[in-house]
């Protein structure tokens, strides 16, 4: 007996019109663009409420219309009766595309040599053909921030859509220089520096950060005055941060470090985003007061201290949101960015509530990253990043029926699904030879 998943079945049905349009090379299905009418669904717009019996027209990669009676005779009609449509989810922090197999150093491209390398561009190293990308997008995650890590200023992160064959096709309009804020936390169980040493190391690193900052400031000022300076790409990039052209994404997690980071930010004109913020709940009010937005996660994570409640990480996004912080959720993953809806689901269950949790993976990251005019909700004129599902996509039992990214209809296939197709009923089986 075959018991196919609904999604897979839907996928097969979806093939039929494509065949007619000769979109198949052999058995391969490509993403394709066009004019699509998603008809008669429950549309969760995020920003404009939930609309019943509503249709969406996708044209030129954008959401062209949202309404109850859209007439578009030339559009390919997809019946969505009984289904729900959400905006595509945005993961505010990943290494997607920068890592293929994490234990194989040759396939990891997120950490460059050097402590001050803000000029390293994650977008350059993104592999558009990473196996993890199709694995991710069928879960409804359509856009991710892909982030370099390593030294003090490890590089420049980029927001990408999970469709396209060149970085430029994928680029979703936002970059940020990453800073690993000097930490007073231990790096793991085997970091056995004394408390004093940790403090000293931390102070030293902070001093170093300030020096870099001041140097970049000087560089920027001199340049602005028309000075001809020696080629200095690191400072070139840092100066853009100081000038407010590129935001600074500050990775910071321990409560004391967050406080230090907020202090460090004070009086600086640049744009700042906090990232990680594992112990944000301890200092939520202070973060809220600062007005600095936060990308937090992973949510399915252990507490940072043995004495913490078991649900410290689950409840962190909710506590931050309640305090008034603008919160986006990230997985901090590579191959399993597909779990973003589940991280958000846990945040919802542990105090954040579904509505806020949905915002934290859609409109909030879009706003934090300054791309809310294009992403993060279902509104006319925004980029057509949409997911159609049988029910709330945070639920594991929900089946994602259709995914659109940048207006492209995404084939619901990937390595995982292909292996399922091949091996569910293996041929030859046990005895046949």
């Amino acid at each position, binding site marked *: 007996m075959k018991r196919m998943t609904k999604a897979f079945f839907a996928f097969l049905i979806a093939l039929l019109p494509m065949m007619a349009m000769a979109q198949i090379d052999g058995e391969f299905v490509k993403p394709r663009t066009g004019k699509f009418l998603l008809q008669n669904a429950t549309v969760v717009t995020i920003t404009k409420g939930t609309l019943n019996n509503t249709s969406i027209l996708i044209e030129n990669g954008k959401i062209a219309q949202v309404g109850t009676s859209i007439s578009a005779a030339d559009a390919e009609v997809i019946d969505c009766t009984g289904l729900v449509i959400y905006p595509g989810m945005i993961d505010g922090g990943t290494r997607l595309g920068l890592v293929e197999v994490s234990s194989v150093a040759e396939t990891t491209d997120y950490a460059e040599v050097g402590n001050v390398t803000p000029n390293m561009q994650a977008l350059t190293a993104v592999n558009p053909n990473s196996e*993890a990308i199709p694995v991710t997008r069928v879960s409804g995650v359509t856009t991710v921030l892909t982030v370099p890590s390593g030294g003090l200023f490890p590089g420049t992160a980029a927001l990408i859509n999970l469709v396209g064959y060149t970085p430029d096709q994928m680029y979703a309009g936002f970059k940020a220089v990453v800073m690993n804020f000097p930490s007073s936390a231990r790096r*793991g169980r085997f970091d056995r520096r004394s408390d004093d040493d940790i403090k000293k190391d931390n102070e030293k690193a902070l001093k170093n950060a300030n020096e870099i900052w001041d140097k970049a400031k000087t560089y920027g000022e001199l340049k602005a005055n028309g000075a001809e300076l020696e080629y200095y790409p690191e400072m070139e990039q840092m100066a853009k941060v100081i000038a407010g052209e590129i935001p600074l994404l500050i990775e910071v997690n321990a409560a004391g470090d967050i406080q230090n980071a907020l202090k460090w930010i004070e009086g600086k004109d640049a744009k700042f985003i906090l990232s990680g913020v594992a112990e944000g709940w301890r200092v939520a009010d202070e973060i809220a007061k600062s007005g600095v937005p936060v990308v937090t996660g992973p949510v399915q994570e252990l507490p940072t201290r043995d004495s913490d409640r078991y649900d410290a990480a689950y409840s962190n996004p909710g506590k931050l949101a309640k305090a008034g912080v603008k919160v986006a959720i990230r997985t901090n993953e590579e*191959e399993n960015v597909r779990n973003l*809806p589940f991280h958000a689901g846990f945040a919802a269950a542990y105090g954040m509530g579904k509505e806020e949790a949905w915002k934290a993976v859609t409109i909030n990251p879009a706003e934090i990253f300054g791309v809310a005019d294009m992403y993060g909700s279902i509104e006319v004129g925004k980029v057509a990043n949409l997911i159609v599902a049988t029910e709330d996509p*945070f639920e594991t*039992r929900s089946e994602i029926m259709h995914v659109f990214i940048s207006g492209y209809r995404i084939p619901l296939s990937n390595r995982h699904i292909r292996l399922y197709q091949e091996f569910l009923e*293996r041929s030859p089986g046990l005895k046949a030879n």
Partner: protein
Amino acid sequence: MKKINYFLAALMGLSFSFASAQTPKGSVLIKNATVLTVTKGTLENSDVLVQDGIIKKVGQNLSAPSGVETIDATGKYLIPGIIDAHSHVALDVVNEATAPIVAEVRMRDVVNPFEVGIYRALAGGVTISHAMHGSANVVGGQNVTLKHRWGAEDPAGIIMQDAPRTIKFALGENPTRVHGRGRGIQPRTRMGVEAILRNGFNEALQYKKAWEEYNAAASQKGNTTLAPEYDERLQTLVDILDGKIIIHCHSYRADEIYMLINVARDFGITKLVFQHTNEGFKVAPEIAEYTMGASVFADWWAYKFEVYYSTAFNAAILQKNGAITSINSDSAELIRHLYHEAAKTQRYGGMTDDEALSMITINPAKQLGISDKVGSIEVGKQADLVIFEGHPLSVYAVPQQTYVDGIKYFDIKEDADDQRLRVSPTEMVEPIYMTQEDHRCLQDVELSFSDISKSLFNTNY
């Protein structure tokens, strides 16, 4: 009983006899729950009566005997305690990585009942975990099955004394890296892994024969035969061949899984469970036919090369091919939401509720040899139970209370902030760990400097 050396039996007898003092057992009546028995279907609005740690009655309108507390679970779900078939929680040492075979090593020697991970697992509804030796060796140490009786001071108090013996095996990248590449000894390849296994079992057969011959001779008058050397390593392999120990084998690739099936068949071994088994789906018919199944991750893949060709549909393919399939954690983090990991089999393969739940209850119980005692809500079984708010397979489910042997060890309403059982007297500033070391399959493996980076920042499952 097979005629093993009496002398040794006398020596070894001691080691099996010091089962702990009586473990605490409780009584409780849980009323009006939606009871997901796993093996006997779903019972709406039903009651479960527990007395002295055992499920005594399951039905409706049960009344509590005097002195037995009643818990109202109206609107809530009751499921059997979750069983994690692969964990390293509560172990002070995980790997004795120094030899390709270390069957003599016993994880029960280094159980640490104070690890807060036990409580955190309880908060995720996990009542039993299989605390395993790591994956550095072809034949690792003997694992220990734990019951999460949080608060026990004696390590013996959290050991499930009535669980059968199990042992860790490991194939593929880990043992070949640690021994072949790390130390320049076999195995360096998957060929070598097979050779280590076959050599080991053949040596064990010789060992067994030597002792049998000695025992026969020693009982004769005027015996002039010397006793052979005692070797607990080989004796343990003999016990495996005699069917006394269940093998739990860390494995990823289909070829190596198939290899071990062949080795097991050649040596008449049937008690074999595969762990991780990322490519188990490729040899699902063989796993179903010849073994006790596979215990897998819900969706982990691509963290190392041997799991690059994986699918999250693995569990579903295995299950549909008739293999006993469980979902495990191998992680102090994942162990806290195994109900959610099991639920992923609904997205990846459309498992029914019972199929999904069986993967974290009765199926791991079968693989650990304890399914006659735990793993479902049935009269006569040990009362390991979890009350959930929301269906346990919903992403929004929140465990409310967790019982082991009828005693409540977790209650979300009475969950104090600081659950540590032991506090260091010399650390006022509590360490904050940002890189949680929750993946410990290769913990304690001595690595040289060049490997430090790998062990610190890469996953080594």
